[in-house]
């Protein structure tokens, strides 16, 4: 199975931000999305995950194969680290909680309320959720925000292991994760054209010029 995206166009707030996005991602590979703020990295990722409809284009893989990690971690402050993870493991029908705790270095924090975690620890817990989904394509939106250098390296190792096991990763990030397997896709050329340049009538927004 490979992820093939053809001529994807997507909109944010009713305005087209990206059009003609095409790429292919093969198992064992990662694709890093680059581009300035506002270019539509998050919008593209949410569209691929099925959270919003695409305006045009085709995605060869259904959203059911993707595990999405957004800016927000989706943690419940009054549940413990283990309870937070166990909930998602139950939702996805896996029993990988222990494995995820070990691999994201959360074992020592397992019985602590999520409210009492530091920002970086919360992020690690949010990312540990990816491990319990068991889904092949990880869709990561700025995964390294608030992680220290050691944690970034730890998470890069986790991604590398996921890729080595035949998984895929689609990452929007400004930081170099040090992944040799990763290709880089600059979204700049796919910015939606303004109507004057032949783009769709709804595409233009002065914020993106």
């Amino acid at each position, binding site marked *: 199975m490979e992820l093939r995206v053809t001529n994807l166009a997507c909109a944010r707030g009713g305005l087209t931000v990206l059009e003609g996005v095409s790429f292919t991602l093969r198992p064992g590979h990662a694709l890093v999305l680059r581009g300035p703020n506002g270019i539509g990295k998050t919008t593209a990722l949410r569209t691929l995950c099925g959270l*919003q409809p695409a305006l045009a284009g085709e995605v060869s893989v259904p*959203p059911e194969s993707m595990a999405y990690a957004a800016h927000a971690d989706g943690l*419940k402050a009054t*549940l413990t680290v283990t309870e937070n993870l166990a909930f998602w493991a*139950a*939702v996805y029908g896996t029993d990988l909680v222990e494995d995820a705790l070990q691999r994201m270095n959360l074992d020592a924090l397992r019985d602590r309320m999520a409210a009492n975690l530091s920002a970086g620890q919360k992020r690690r817990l949010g990312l540990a959720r990816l491990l319990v989904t068991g889904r092949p394509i990880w869709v990561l939106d700025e995964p390294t925000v608030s992680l220290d250098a050691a944690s970034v390296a730890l998470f890069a190792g986790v991604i590398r292991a996921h890729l080595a096991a035949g998984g895929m990763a689609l990452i929007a990030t400004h930081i170099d994760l040090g992944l040799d397997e990763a290709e880089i896709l600059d979204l700049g050329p796919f910015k939606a054209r303004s109507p004057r340049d032949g783009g769709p009538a709804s595409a233009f927004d002065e914020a993106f010029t």
Partner: protein
Amino acid sequence: MIALLIRDLRLAMRAGGGFGLGLAFFLLVAVLVPLGVGPEGSTLAKIAPGILWVGALLACLLSLDRIFALDFEDGSLDLLATAPMPLEGVVAVKAFAHWLVTGLPLTLVAPVLGLLLNLPGAGYGWLVASLALGTPALSVIGAFGAALTVGLKRGGLLLSLLVLPLYVPTLIFGAEVVKRGAEGQAVSTPLLLLAGITAGAAALLPFASAAAIRVNLR
């Protein structure tokens, strides 16, 4: 699905979860009304069905905005929408969890408050029956309102304005069951209508709510 139910119940029980808020509110309403109206037994007995139903309805309303807003704020709603369960199921489970945390306790304590309001003896059974049949509709309709307003800042007030008119049929037939029951009249017509509203709401509204959430997540 069951995991989601357990999570929601657990969150409601933990600190700041809001369990008991609706119950305490219901209790206060039922205590305040006799203080305002006066202790005359016959007056209280006459208004008891209406007061108890209005109190239960407002108590339900208190915690509605928590159904989806908290999950929206911390990002779990996005993650639930991409999880391998239908969003309609998520809505139904969360509405059921809301009922278990508010509607069910309200139903169980209502007879005690009926005593405070001098409800005639024949009405107690019907009070519990009507609340048990009617409060699920309050949770399901409320979840629909919460789904409509989920992306809005300060959506709570708008939610109340949207939901209260939709509560009217449940209130009318629920209070009617108790009133007729207390007076010893036949209750089957309002009771069936009440059950019909609940069944219809529970069958249809999860789909509407899920559609509203999908739009709000875009």
